[in-house]
């Protein structure tokens, strides 16, 4: 039973991280209908930035709390800057191009960013500083749930609540929902669609960066390639939940996290990534609209 609970908790933790990344996919898809293939790289850059900042600060002897805050903020700021810039360079000029052009551009961007980090930093795995201490009150159940699992879960929940608030009640959130429904109409009623798209990329990137930092400190190491697999998995989660739907992304992520956790725990860990890919292929083939998504009807 303990093993089951352990797998369950690790599945939820995984799912929470996937959710942070999947939200970026789903928001961008909802607004400009693009699979932002480079989103996994944004997450990787977030992890790298927090790694660099945290390591520098710890070398210079800053206190742990300051390191966490500064590294988190830096990761969010820089990832957002990357997200913003990528949209301007690789997607904005292609807004009226055939549907596959921005996707090819996104794939190019993803490859570019991977190799940029590889060349600017290193191809080795880097040990990520341990940011989350073991809490004393977690001692009795530490063999089942780690402290970092708890932190990830709490952080994700808080971030989700803030995001929901932003999208439901703020001006930019309303503009985003309007643009997602009908871009031309949103433009006609005076919404600056370019700003809305930029805001979407910035928010999505910041979420991915937080996810990057959390998972890096949870697993304890990073390298330039982590974005590819994480990106595909988060995309799977987004599609599973119904791409374009924010609650769907969260639900899909939890389902994917649990599936992976149980599959690797009870079946085999060799095929960990195969489960995710197979799930992706199966959903796209049998229910492309996902769990909570709307069916797209083709107008003739």
């Amino acid at each position, binding site marked *: 039973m303990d093993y089951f609970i352990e797998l369950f908790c690790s599945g939820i933790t995984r799912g929470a991280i996937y959710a942070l990344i999947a939200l970026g996919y789903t928001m961008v898809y909802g607004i400009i209908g693009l699979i932002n293939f480079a989103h996994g790289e944004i997450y990787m850059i977030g992890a790298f*930035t927090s790694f*660099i900042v945290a390591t520098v600060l710890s070398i210079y002897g800053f206190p742990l709390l300051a390191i966490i805050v500064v590294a988190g903020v830096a990761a969010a700021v820089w990832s957002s800057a990357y997200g913003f810039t990528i949209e301007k360079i690789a997607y904005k000029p292609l807004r009226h191009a055939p549907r596959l052009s921005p996707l090819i551009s996104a794939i190019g961007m993803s490859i570019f960013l991977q190799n940029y980090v590889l060349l600017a930093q290193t191809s080795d795995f880097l040990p990520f500083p341990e940011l989350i201490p073991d809490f004393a009150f977690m001692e009795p159940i530490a063999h089942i749930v780690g402290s970092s699992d708890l932190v990830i879960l709490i952080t994700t929940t808080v971030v989700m609540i803030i995001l929901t608030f932003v999208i439901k009640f703020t001006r930019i959130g309303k503009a985003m929902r309007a643009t997602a429904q009908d871009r031309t109409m949103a433009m006609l009623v005076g919404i600056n669609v370019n700003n809305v798209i930029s805001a979407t990329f910035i928010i999505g990137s910041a979420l991915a960066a937080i996810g990057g930092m959390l998972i890096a400190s949870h697993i304890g190491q990073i390298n330039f390639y982590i974005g590819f697999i994480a990106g*595909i998995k988060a*995309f799977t989660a987004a599609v599973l939940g119904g791409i374009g739907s924010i609650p769907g992304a969260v639900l899909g992520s939890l389902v994917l996290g649990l599936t992976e956790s149980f599959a690797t725990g009870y079946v085999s860990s060799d095929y960990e990534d195969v489960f995710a890919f197979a799930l992706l292929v199966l959903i796209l083939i049998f229910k492309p609209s996902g769990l909570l998504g709307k069916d797209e009807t083709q107008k003739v």
Partner: protein
Amino acid sequence: MFTLKEIKKTVLISLWFVFLTFPLMVIKVDPIEKTVLWRWHNALYVAIGIFCIRCLIEFFRHRKQQKEKKKKNSSDDSQALIHRILVDPRKRNIMLGVLLSLVVIFPFVFDTYQTNIMITALMYVVLGLGLNIVVGMAGLLDLGFVAFYAVGAYSYALLNHHFGLGFWAVLPIGGGLAAFAGILLGFPVLRLRGDYLAIVTLGFGEIIRLILENWNEFSMGPSGISNIDRPYFFGINLSLEHSILYLYYIMILFLIVTIFIVNRLQNSRLGRAWIALREDEIACQAMGIDKRKTKLVAFALGAFWAGVVGVIFAAKTTFINPASFTFLESAIILSIVVLGGMGSIVGVIFGALILILLPEYLRALSEYRMLAFGAILVAMMVFRPQGLISKIRRTYTFKQE
């Protein structure tokens, strides 16, 4: 042209990129030694680099606008040199003759090492032409193309290892198995929308690779299969040097056959149907074209070529492992097609030669290879979606009888 305002804007953009790349380019930490390396010179490089790139882009944009203005006044539309050569049958034949003789004498002028590189380049030309059927003509973005390449390579490696089958026997089998895999994958995925199809094929490609990596009893896992036979020449086991020469000519012959077939396919009833399918699926069906069948054929044909090149690859390197069949390989082949010009045969040939030979000869640049591939995909989509050499529009001459 370069007004103060423009320069100011360019400087600001450069500064933005300095900020953007600051943590990754400037700081390098060693978490074990606990040291920080501040590489301030990199910030300067970024600033200068971005400044120059932006100036170049603006310069070309400016020139293009000027050209378009001129074009409106005078009605002559100057075509690219390559198009003029291709359109004129006499010039085309001369060019083909020169090219062919160059290609034939190549191994006698250059050494084995160069010939070997050339074989690789030719393999990518054929892979590009195969993918071009799927992506360029039928408009199906296949990101798992490498899976079919792997099917071909593993067919030869395994059949050779277990049953001692020779190169020539496996060549059609490898192609056939890859085409079969294409059809198997095609059945469920071809009704998907374009971008979903791309992701599913990517997932499929990765699944194949992961299976090859983990299913040790079948594929011998990550360590791969070695000692694969090189092709025999009428039953004679050739020396290494000669077998490279032999493989080179096989590749040339195979390339010519491929170009011939792809060209004919393109200008056929089937080729037209592919292009129509790319343009508008619903209208295409309403005109009586079986969408499923037409797409499947494109998929299977593309996969067939990948499979055959896979067999050649295994025979050339005599060793294969799953690491040769990652997503990046698919991305490289896609870059070739995109750079050359989707749907253009000549374009794909140029694309492959540029992308494969350049990094080989400019060794200093080879570590920037993948960086460049990524940048090329983005830049081509943004600035020149039709590729370096766009497809020649086919016109029909009609004579009343």
